[in-house]
């Protein structure tokens, strides 16, 4: 696994010099959805859901991916697995069996193999489980499809998975309707973990859950990460949850990555004005009145018809002429801290205020 020590790369986003290359490296990922009109379904434009995104995830860590609804974070997560095929770009994954491969270029046969190692869990535990399948069928489905196990062995592995996520193996013959939201999320997790993967895309896994259940699932995700050496791409919009679970956080705005840094740095010293606004908008469970928060004006840009220059400029309080015409690049401003802003170097932005 470590024979490749590829420290030189053509990409501007590059991991810290280290022995291992990142487990996942995404370069210039794009996903455009065509807008079709009329009888002949003429393509009149594109919704640029993901528009040139670069990031990497190191082995064993959690990268949080945040942004407003419609910013392309879910699409990014799905493109990484090629659940939907990206329009362009590369997704380099360090597969334990196949070595470093570009997932976005794989064909069906190879994708089945790589998806043993890259899996996904979904937001809605009610919609993501087939109500007509028993837990055995649901959790066993990936094992069967990938010819990993069958018969008694399959049953044993399903039982083991259910135990791992905190469900009783005796429930194996039951259907999803018999379970609560939190338990269903555990079932989804068991299904994702059944083929013993390396990497998990978690698409808003706790957003639909109550506070007390959310805490249970977050803890379970952390426990499993330590036990099984998992790596997570954690897509969510709740910033407190993301801060809690992630080592590093990436922020998206209208299909582009605007900032990526360690959780600590991003929350305390954000370098992009959009991140600053996000930080200030977090509702805090503390009744102490705090400083006036930064309220964004206007609406999120339309990804089918984005503004010129920096997409954030119509809402940005620090806007200058250059922002209106030229798109900034996603640069490493300090080690491991990437930002896409013309004024990143000069601005002194405030992070989450420390009230303690």
């Amino acid at each position, binding site marked *: 696994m470590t024979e490749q020590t590829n420290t030189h790369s053509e990409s501007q986003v590059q991991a810290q010099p280290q022995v291992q290359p990142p487990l996942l490296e995404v370069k210039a990922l794009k996903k455009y959805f065509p807008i079709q009109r009329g009888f002949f379904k003429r393509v009149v434009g594109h919704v640029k859901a993901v528009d040139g995104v670069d990031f990497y995830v190191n082995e064993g860590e959690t990268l949080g991916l945040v942004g407003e*609804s419609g910013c392309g974070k879910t699409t990014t997560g799905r493109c990484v697995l090629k659940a939907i095929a990206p329009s362009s770009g590369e997704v380099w994954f360090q597969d334990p069996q196949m070595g470093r491969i570009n997932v976005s270029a794989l064909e069906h046969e190879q994708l089945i193999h790589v998806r043993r190692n890259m899996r996904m869990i979904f937001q809605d535990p009610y919609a993501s489980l087939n109500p007509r399948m028993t837990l055995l069928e649901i959790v066993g489905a990936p094992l069967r499809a990938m010819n990993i196990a069958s018969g008694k062995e399959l049953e044993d592995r399903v039982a083991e998975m259910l135990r791992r996520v905190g469900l009783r193996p005796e429930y194996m013959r039951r259907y999803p309707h018999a379970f609560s939201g939190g338990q269903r999320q555990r079932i989804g997790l068991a299904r994702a973990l059944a083929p013993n993967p390396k990497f998990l895309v978690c698409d808003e896994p706790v957003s639909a859950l109550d506070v007390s259940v959310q805490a249970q699932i977050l803890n379970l995700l*952390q426990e499993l990460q330590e036990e099984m050496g998992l790596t997570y791409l954690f897509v969510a919009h709740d910033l407190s949850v993301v801060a809690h679970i992630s080592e590093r956080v990436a922020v998206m705005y209208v299909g582009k990555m605007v900032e990526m840094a360690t959780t600590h740095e991003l929350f305390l010293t954000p370098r992009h004005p959009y991140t600053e606004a996000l930080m200030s908008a977090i509702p805090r469970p503390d009744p102490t009145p705090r400083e006036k928060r930064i309220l964004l004006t206007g609406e999120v840009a339309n990804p089918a018809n984005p503004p010129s220059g920096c997409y954030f400029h119509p809402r940005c309080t620090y806007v200058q002429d250059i922002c209106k015409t030229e798109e900034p690049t996603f640069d490493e401003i300090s080690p491991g801290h990437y930002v896409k802003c013309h004024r990143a170097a000069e601005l002194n932005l405030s992070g989450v205020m420390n009230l303690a």
Partner: protein
Amino acid sequence: MSADHVLAEIKNLRTYFHLAEGVVRAVDGVDLTIKAGRTLGIVGESGCGKSITALSLMQLVPSPGKIEAGEITYYRTVHRTESTSTADVVEISKLKPNSREMRAIRGNQISMVFQEPMAAMLPVRTVGAQIMETIMLHQQVSKEEARKRAIDILSRVKLPNADRIVDTYPFQLSGGMRQRAVIAMALSCNPNLLIADEPTTALDVTTEAQILDLMRELQQEYGMAIMYITHNLGVIAEMAQEVAVMYMGKVVEQTDVTSIFRNPLHPYTQALLRSIPQLDDVMARAGKKKRLETIKGMVPDPYSVLPGCSFHPRCPQYMEGVCNQVVPAVIEVEPDHIVRCHLYASHSANARAN
């Protein structure tokens, strides 16, 4: 208007749903007081009865739900002078849901903002037409005047180009704009009480921040009371002055917002506060990971009737023989800090909790 003028009072409210599988005691003996011009926050997890309490107050309980017992009293101000105000007492719990009196109150003096702005508006009529309908139903004004008022209220909720928005359909607006339009509709008749049921749950953080700010501004401008229902403790901290925590159809703790966060007494409130990721805490750890504290088990199924305190199977401070047998009474541990828990049984009104 005096600061402590009581606007609405809920006493021992019980709203039950009789289903084939059994009786769901959605609201099971709730007491709440809503003061004029103040914000009462109601927190709890799904199924705790917070929304049904609000719907009972509006006489909008969906079938087969029924208000079984209790009183909902609404003190309607009829005449207001500098020093005195006379209140006209309306027993909402005695009114029929579709009675003339109830319909005159609903949407007029007491109005509601729902979680899903798209579901709260009719997709086939323009935003303006829906607001005008409310205005013309409750106030004797001409169509032109109603339209003028609709545009005025739309601009007050800070929608740009209100004169254009008035003729748009809900689907043409973004989520945040739609929620503003729904708030405009709720405020169009200048209500005394606005019930907001998770109004920002479906919105993004930045949009949520805008809507919360807007609601606070409008409250100062119009002086209405807000009953704010949410499961988000962060939002409660920002919006509410008084907080009631609900669990399985009962208010388990109620006090002012500072005490609920600084000095929570009920084990459920304490556990709830500990189970949310706290940003300050995360930052102080500087990258080191930690587990959240959880509440063991889960909310029991709604048909079950637990003996004693309904939180006892999950309570870390469970006392055998007491909590599982006796329903805890409401105890005023400190002035204006009430809690339903046996731990405080020995406390007189002045005793400190710890």
